[in-house]
């Protein structure tokens, strides 16, 4: 998966993928069921609206505070990490991040890399880059392992294999894992994955992880997980490489407490995850395990573009809980793969344009009903609907501020239509004339109106305008 090519999302491809899912009753049932389940679990975690709103205020303030001081906090983080014995690398682009990781892996003479869950590694096409260099990068989060076995990417940022039924996974395991008989018992399937991956943890040379929060005050990388594969990847191999976006930094260790709480409750509706793993350095003198080398790769990949704009900066408040995805009526119907980028759903629509450019991602910002559910559930109050509207404007208006790919969706006919619309609505006489013309000429309106009538009745003006109806009534 090379990011610059596969991430290409021409609108036809997006539409085609969406239609394919919409036509698949089984997939639609399974997405709907999963979304209902996740929404209900999250709701149960916030029984007290005052507590929830108070915690949201606090967490939003913490994220905004971190971003306001981002350059200083990143410097502090780097200094503390170096003092702790962690090597810090900065990567402007996806290619640069992969090159840094590859150099570390080569220096470690690595043949096998085990990976904990890292969305940034998906974003930069890490597995593909390693495969090209002849190094196997094996996903060890069970969901990620399943989609990797299937030759797919994750369809959800928290639950990568949410689009698969246990029957499909049972067939996949029986086909792809040597010596595995078909079973669709979930415990048995998990046990199979556990055994396969344990053998890999024991021999892997390098472990990869993401980062949920990077604490500037102490130089600590915080990892949130349930399975324990994150701990395996960061404790067993000789080298640990953490990859994260520059926005994940928080000022103080104490700030992790509320952020961790709102993250797990918003994401999967759990009061807490099984593990919170705080890593503040490599194996120290005398310690008997843990990696001898710990590296952190801080990835920009378009994040500074979002940062430069006072409104779009809010995109970087995200703590990647996925609540907006779980509550999105569009995601619930088309699933994650239709989006064609690493991050699906509302957060994907507002973040991807910065990572991959609007030219390749603009259809995503239009793939929303603007119902507002995403903004309502966001635990750090990112105004997602406002950002969608803003990015729509950027997508059609090339004269806007410097966003990569701005204006990619501009179309002369559309813009002519809107100019005419504006003219008509600004001029009372013209408005009266045009509406008169439309109501008299209604039979000339076509029954087939392109995309609009694919799933809706055609737009035909009324026989009488409102002003005509009022005139009639007065006459009586």
């Amino acid at each position: 998966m090379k990011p610059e090519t596969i991430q290409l999302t021409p609108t036809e491809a997006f539409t085609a993928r969406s239609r394919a899912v919409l036509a698949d009753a089984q997939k639609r049932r399974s997405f709907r069921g999963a979304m209902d389940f996740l929404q209900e679990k999250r709701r149960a975690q916030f029984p007290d609206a005052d507590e929830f709103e108070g915690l949201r205020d606090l967490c939003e303030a913490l994220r905004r505070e971190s971003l306001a001081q981002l350059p200083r906090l990143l410097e502090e983080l780097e200094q503390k990490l170096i003092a702790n014995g962690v090597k810090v690398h900065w990567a402007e682009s996806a290619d640069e991040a992969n090159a840094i990781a590859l150099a570390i892996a080569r220096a470690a003479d690595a043949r096998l890399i085990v990976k904990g869950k890292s969305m940034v590694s998906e974003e930069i096409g890490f597995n593909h880059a390693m495969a090209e260099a002849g190094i196997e990068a094996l996903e060890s989060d069970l969901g990620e392992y399943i989609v990797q076995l299937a030759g797919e990417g994750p369809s959800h940022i928290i639950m990568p294999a949410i689009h698969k039924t246990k029957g499909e996974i049972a067939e996949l395991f029986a086909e792809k894992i040597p010596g595995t008989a078909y079973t669709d018992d979930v415990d048995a399937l998990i046990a199979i994955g556990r055994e396969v991956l344990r053998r890999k943890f024991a021999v892997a040379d390098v472990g990869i992880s993401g980062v949920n929060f990077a604490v500037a005050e102490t130089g600590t990388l915080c990892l949130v997980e349930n399975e324990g594969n994150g701990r395996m990847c960061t404790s067993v191999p000789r080298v640990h490489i953490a990859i994260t976006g520059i926005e994940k930094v928080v000022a103080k260790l104490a700030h992790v407490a509320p952020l961790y709480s709102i993250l797990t409750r918003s994401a999967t509706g759990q009061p807490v995850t099984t593990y919170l793993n705080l890593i503040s350095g490599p194996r120290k003198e005398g310690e008997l395990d843990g990696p001898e080398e710990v590296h952190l790769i801080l990835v920009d990949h378009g994040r500074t573009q979002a940062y430069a704009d006072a409104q779009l900066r809010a995109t970087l408040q995200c703590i990647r809980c996925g609540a907006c995805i779980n509550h999105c009526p569009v995601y619930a119907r088309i699933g994650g793969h239709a989006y064609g980028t690493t991050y699906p759903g509302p957060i994907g629509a507002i973040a991807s344009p910065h990572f991959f450019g609007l030219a390749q991602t603009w259809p995503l910002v239009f793939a929303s009903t603007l119902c507002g559910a995403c903004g309502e559930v966001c635990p750090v109050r990112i105004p997602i609907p406002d950002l969608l509207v803003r990015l729509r404007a950027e997508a059609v208006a090339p004269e806007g501020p410097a966003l990569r790919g701005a204006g990619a969706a501009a179309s002369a006919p559309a813009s002519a239509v809107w100019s005419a619309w504006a003219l008509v609505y600004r001029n009372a006489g013209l408005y009266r004339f045009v509406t008169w013309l439309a109501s008299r000429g209604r039979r000339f309106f076509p029954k087939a109106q392109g995309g609009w009538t694919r799933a809706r009745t055609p737009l035909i003006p009324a026989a009488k305008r409102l002003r005509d109806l009022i005139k009639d009534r007065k006459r009586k």
Partner: protein
Amino acid sequence: MILARLRAAAPAPVPPLADVGAWYTARARGEDAAQRLARFTRAIEAARAEVHEASAANWRERLFAVAAAKGVRTLLIGATAAGAALEAENAGRLKIVRYDKPIETWRDELFAQIDAGFTLARGAIAETGSLIVWPSVAEPRLISLVPALHFVLLDARTIHADLHSAISSENWPANLPTNALLISGPSKTSDIQQTVAYGAHGPRELVVFVLREDA
């Protein structure tokens, strides 16, 4: 370059500084140690951990009894006084292995031949039912991760109300080890059709012995 671009960005209006301490102070429950223990136990049992209350005198016998019931043959311990006490009272019931050499020299054996691990908890968190486990020179990281069963010894007096109170009252920022953990149950996953399954990569079972002065 990245930092230069960030610095060049228009400064956002500085938001009011969040007062995390005040949030937790305002929500403090004023519980005593017994109430915190009760809340901790409820929460961690809901995550499928086993909790046994015990005394300084009897926790080892309780542990041996649970180990026997679960068919444990080999137990991995660290270089702690509690571990040594287990060894002293073992009387040949278990094969007790000390984690006293670097992982590189016995990785396969650790992954293949150890049934259970035993560690201390530094403390716990009532709100979420979380054990605070800080691996160390004496108790390496993998004791609490690789064996399929994890035994933990917790002193009831060390249970905090919430994570924030643990971090601030113990001044974690000044004392963090290379690896610090919260453990809130056995390893689990919901990656197959949102069905919870235990023992994903870490321990399948978590058994906590809580020391109570009055037990």
